[in-house]
């Protein structure tokens, strides 16, 4: 699968537009519903949600414990739930174990905590290679792990959705939850990246 540049783009554009009109004309689709769907996943639901879950887990040992044991309930307690996140598991990265999530067969992704997946996550290069050469993929993201660290790749073949709990970066002692959340990148919650180190001299 290619990226988002495609020679027949304008053709697709026309066909999508024409289908939408037809569906509305037939009463199969309510235009107001389309607005709700787009607004929800373009502006309301995104990786900020997951970042708040992670930051809470970093700062609250009891919450972290609940998150690892019953991810769905712990995540819902922060207000995140719903479609494509009905059955959640959280995978904790440690010094010894690095978890990374892929969907080799399609594009399964935990929407309530991460929003819609980026193009690379749905693309053939990632789906083909993550399960065979995870360290090579991490290198594409500029991440190099010690050889002693075991890399565990989770192929999302069922309706369970996986969220990676990245390692808390050093030098973040005493930082507040909100500041910590700003260090949690989307990629770190897929396991294709690490959480950001704080800027030197940034507020705690």
């Amino acid at each position, binding site marked *: *699968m290619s*990226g*988002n540049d*495609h020679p027949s*783009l304008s053709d*697709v*554009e026309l*066909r999508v537009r024409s*289908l*939408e009109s*037809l*569906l509305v004309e*037939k*009463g*199969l689709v*309510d235009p107001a*519903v*389309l607005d*709700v*769907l*787009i607004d*929800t*996943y*373009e502006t309301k639901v995104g990786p900020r949600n997951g970042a708040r879950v992670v930051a809470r887990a970093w700062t609250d040992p009891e919450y972290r414990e609940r998150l690892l044991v019953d991810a769905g309930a712990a995540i819902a307690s922060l207000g995140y*739930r*719903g*479609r*494509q*996140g*009905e*059955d959640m598991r959280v995978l904790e990265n440690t010094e010894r174990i690095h978890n990374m999530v892929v969907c*080799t*067969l399609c*594009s399964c992704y935990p929407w309530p905590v991460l929003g*819609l997946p980026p*193009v*690379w996550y749905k*693309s053939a*290069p990632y789906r*083909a*290679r*993550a*399960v*065979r050469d*995870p*360290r090579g*993929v991490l290198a*594409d993201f500029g991440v190099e792990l010690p050889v002693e*660290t*075991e*890399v565990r*790749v*989770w*192929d*999302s*073949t*069922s309706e*369970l959705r996986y969220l990676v709990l990245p390692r808390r970066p050093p030098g973040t002692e005493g930082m507040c939850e909100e500041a910590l959340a700003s260090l949690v990148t989307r*990629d770190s919650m897929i396991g*294709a990246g690490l959480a950001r180190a704080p800027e030197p001299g940034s507020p705690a």
Partner: protein
Amino acid sequence: MNGGHDLGGMHGFGPVAAEPDEPVFHHEWERRAFAITLACGLLGRWNLDMARHARERIPPPRYLGASYYEIWFEALLTLLVEQGLLSADELETGRSAEASAGELRVPGPDAVRAILERGGSTRADEAPARFLVGERVRVRNRHPLGHTRAPRYVRGRAGTIEGRHGTYVFPDAHAHGGGPRPQPLYSVRFDGIELWGKDGDPGSAVYVDLWEGYLEPAPEQR
């Protein structure tokens, strides 16, 4: 099916290219394709497994040459026609042959908000499980023409049951009108070397969610 979608372990696609500050949608048509796909899904005429299978059935050259929302869009057309919601003629002309959605319940914005927040788990009542955590299993070497969620790269390979997820709707039946037929679902761990031989990474493992019907006890070897 062994379609163009079953990509695990393939070579030759090049490096993973992440886009900095990627927007949620790159084009207006992607936004629309996404929304009408979800909206039509809410009509209840197909389930997610059927939708996945419609995507998988796109011939491999087209599947691999298309962007992901193009795949969604192609599959949506397939589902709309197969389920009788649109006629081939309507698609061709872009004009509606009949004005009403008939018996269908088309949810409005508030209903949709509630549905999105509620979701719809495919978890079912617990069923007795055949395999125990820690047991060695092998993925059956099956190559069904229909939908399946056992990727090619694990078929015939041996792994260890690492966890039980509970009992879930079985996609191979559910995608083909066979009903939910729930089965126990396991997390199975495969060592990199078991999957890829000498070409694997000995410091890696792949965890795959596999339904009980995909598995058999691993043969003991002398």
